[in-house]
């Protein structure tokens, strides 16, 4: 049987999280607004209006271009892409065609072992072919045999980023989107929520016999709005193409739409997809002049990127890849971690354990923002030190986390006020130990008959009586002594 491989390129549209639209002063985010209320003459393409470029759009796009190792052009131009569509009010989209803001670039994509064919992790370098600024169109929704148009989204700033045909599996495509989403949030330039269409993806898919280097005719899948859907749509399309080729049919350059409800692909009428966009320079806008000075200002304070930080966490803190990956999943979390490690001064892995097991659960369950928690990295560090120093035991420590978060008081203050310090007074513990042994003659007999593992049970009883405050190690040694 012939073995095929897929050749996949992704066109992503990224909504930048500016306050306002790209060419007018309407809000960029109108997710919660009534239809056609966040509109003005400019974004509705009324006769006579003109676009005026939003500075923040350029700045955010430059940040992204820099992160993608794209060459930022000193002079870039806007062009008109002409086509008719009801959600495109001017009948053309203002985009950048042949001299766009970013030139080239790449993303090194780590593919985890779990997503690889041969179960070995590897790096896929995905080249960036295009990186440019453009305006978003409005939204259409089907209503029987009609369409309803909402222009609220019209003119929201987008960066279109097109990869080379470098991805080979539906899983790789999904990984690319996961990493891109992480990066966008990390840089603070997009909310990157696919459900809200902040991040959209069209996939170009073709197949070829494995080992060949030709590029066969491709289909373009549009309207995929979750990472799972991208994976499913591409996988479905790869299967379809293999079936077609096996049946001796040619793949035609169709445009397909993914219908998430039925999990099927629909073909758009070829007539609508036949396009000559007749690009030409947008006469209503001046070119973007990216001076060295402006660029330096934008890129001052450019952050360490997630994949770099992930590698550094492994190297510097000796964390397992798994920990490093989770801790760098989100920028504020990873900043939190590093601050806590710094303040704590002890074993970074220990901080990681507390963070990943307990603090992260609080964050997720309660929807907290790591940079605004009352349980600050400093508080976590002092809490860990209290545990290390024997002032409190681990379980007290864990219950303290929520208390600090709720009250905003320091762990030390709470411990001393609530008398949560470990009881390490020998005589107090000894009294309770004696009580426990007297109350449990059967267990004492079993222990003495050789079932020494019962020691844990005795310690537990002591802790229970002392509501967890006893120094467990001390209780254990007293019990062992009494049981001799």
């Amino acid at each position, binding site marked *: 049987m012939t073995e095929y491989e897929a050749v996949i390129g992704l066109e992503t549209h990224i909504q930048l999280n500016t306050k306002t639209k790209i060419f007018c002063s309407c809000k960029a985010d109108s997710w919660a607004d009534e239809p056609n209320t966040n509109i003005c*003459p400019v974004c*509705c*393409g*009324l*006769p*006579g*209006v*003109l*676009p*005026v*470029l939003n500075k923040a759009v350029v700045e955010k796009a430059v940040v992204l271009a820099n992160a993608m190792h794209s060459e930022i052009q000193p002079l870039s131009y806007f062009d*008109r892409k*002409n086509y*008719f569509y*009801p959600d495109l*009010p*001017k*009948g*053309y989209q203002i985009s950048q065609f042949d001299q766009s803001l970013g030139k080239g670039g790449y993303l090194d994509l780590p593919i985890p072992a779990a997503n690889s064919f041969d179960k070995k992790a590897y790096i896929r370098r995905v080249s960036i072919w295009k990186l440019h600024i453009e305006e978003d169109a409005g939204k259409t929704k089907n209503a029987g045999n009609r*369409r309803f*148009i909402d222009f609220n989204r019209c003119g929201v700033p987008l960066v279109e980023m097109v990869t080379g045909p470098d991805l080979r599996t539906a899983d790789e495509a999904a990984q690319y989107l996961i990493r891109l989403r992480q990066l966008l949030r990390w840089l603070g330039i997009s909310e990157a929520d696919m459900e809200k269409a902040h991040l959209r993806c069209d996939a170009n898919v073709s197949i070829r016999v494995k080992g060949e280097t030709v590029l066969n005719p491709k289909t373009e899948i549009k309207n995929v709005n979750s990472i799972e859907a991208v994976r499913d749509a591409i996988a479905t399309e790869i299967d379809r193409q293999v079936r077609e080729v096996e049946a001796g049919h040619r793949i035609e350059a169709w445009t397909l739409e993914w219908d998430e409800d039925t999990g099927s692909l629909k073909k758009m009428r070829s*007539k*609508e997809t036949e396009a*000559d966009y*007749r690009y*030409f320079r947008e*006469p*209503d*806008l*001046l070119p973007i002049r990216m001076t060295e000075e402006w660029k330096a200002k934008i890129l001052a304070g450019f952050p360490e990127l997630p994949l770099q930080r992930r590698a550094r966490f492994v190297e510097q803190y000796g964390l397992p890849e798994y920990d490093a990956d989770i801790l760098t999943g989100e920028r504020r979390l990873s900043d939190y971690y590093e601050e806590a490690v710094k303040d704590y001064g002890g074993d970074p892995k220990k901080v990681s354990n507390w963070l990943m097991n307990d603090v992260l659960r609080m964050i997720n369950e309660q929807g907290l923002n790591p940079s605004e928690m009352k349980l600050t990295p400093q508080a976590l560090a002092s809490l860990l030190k209290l545990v290390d120093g024997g002032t409190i035991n681990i379980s007290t420590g864990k219950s303290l986390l929520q208390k600090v978060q709720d009250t905003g008081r320091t762990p030390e203050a709470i411990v001393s006020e609530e008398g949560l310090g470990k009881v390490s007074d020998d005589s107090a513990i000894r009294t309770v130990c004696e009580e426990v042994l007297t109350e449990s003659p059967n267990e004492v007999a079993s222990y003495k008959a050789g079932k020494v593992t019962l020691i844990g049970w005795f310690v537990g009883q002591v802790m229970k009586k002392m509501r967890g405050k006893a120094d467990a190690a001390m209780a254990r040694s007293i019990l062992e002594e009494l049981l001799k």
Partner: protein
Amino acid sequence: MDLCDLSALELSRLLGEKKTSAVEILESSLRRIGEVDGRPGSLNAGEITPNDRSRVHAMITLTEDLALEQAREVDRKLAAGEKVGPLAGVPFTVKDIFCVKDTPSTAGSRILANFVAPYTATPVERMVAAGALMIGKVNLDEFTYGSSTESSAFQPSTRNPWDTSRVPGGSSGGSTASVAAYEVPLSLGTDTAGSIRQPAAFCGVVGVKPTYGRVSRYGLIAFASSLDCPGPVSRTVTDAASMLQVIAGPDSHDATAATTPVSDYLSNLEMGVRGMRIGLSPDYFRITFPDGQGGFKEQELPAEIEKAVRHAADVLASMGAEIVEDVPMPNTRYGIPAYFVISRVEAASNLHRYDGVKYGLRTTQNYTDLKSMYKLTRNEGFGLQPKLRILMGMYVSAAQYSEQYYKRALRVRTLIRRDFEAAFDPAGNYRLDALLTPTTPTTAFEMDAVYGDSVLMQYADQLTVPANHAGVPGISLPGGLDSAQLPIGIQLLGADYSEDKLFRVARAYEMATESEDWRKVKPKVLR
């Protein structure tokens, strides 16, 4: 003498001296419109009657209520001793290619006949802020596509006040006719290839195409965005200068509105031309056009027109200007062919938005799907001229032809620009302050004589279009009458942002010819 026969400057003076009121001025203008304008243009005009043939028909929409409100406000301010703007109480008309809030803004097209703009164009807003009274919106070629105003969907189209069997020129024909017929002293027009200067010449008034980007285009329904320039129409140079002073300058709604400071057009207006260098070019005394057999024909201009220009040069020379002969402007002849390409590409794109979805006409015929709705709407809504421009624009910008036509035309545009740069270069061979040329190859032609021949019609702009390609400013001035008693226009062209100099030269010429006989002749509709 009625108030409406006065210039904006004279009206301001009278108002300042409290010898009249803004409401009286407005009433005078409205009376004049009532006397000479005839019925306004409309979509279903029916038969053109002999009475129609004797009227001007500048108007599409009279905005007298709005103007009255503005006039009362001016009078209230004057009575209260409050400060008023520089054009307070001066009536003006607006070419119906500008959006004005709550008024029909039709572009002379069926497709926008029912469009009521929800916002106001910057130049109109500035006129109103300066106290001027917007009295109405005037006719034009559909979407400004023409040189005779005949292509408007709103008929009867405007006629030339000097001879109502002739066209007023275009596309700002309604603007220039309303000023020439003394309905108003000022009008706001637009010039993409000569659309202010050519009808100004035909109607014997002053028309200014400012430097590209000097006046904001916000609210101007776009034709060719890289060429369109809003500008003043008036009867005197001083009025044009005052009006440009009001409307020029940067605008936060137009990225192409230049931030270069606006010169003071008025202080030095009457400083004369002593020492200024004024050029004449042989390339502006002949035109080249297709002969219909696949070749090109070169033709000298009518002697009367050349004579008027040479006379103007003599007048300026007698006032101390230095006349520089034989300035080469070799790429002038490519202005129209390059324009056929560039303007059409931009126009086709600018007309994409008229699709029956958001505003304007949607077909009332049955449609089966989106595409058929588009087609029926655009077919009903656009006249022949927009259709022609769309098709041409589509053809020459198609991927396979773009290099051959569009890119080539843009490079030829550079050559045309270089002609001007060489002529005005202060360190060059010619060091001109202004180039003096005829505005048009002919005086006003008969209605229906050229209409229908889109090529010949376009060549009416041959002497004006190079300034649009180059972006430089130009003024057309009344320069006498021909043997048929029709106005002849002379044109002054200058370097970027040199409107102040052009006004100075124009005003010098105007003062020097004040007592010439032709200045006393009034348009036929007023005789």
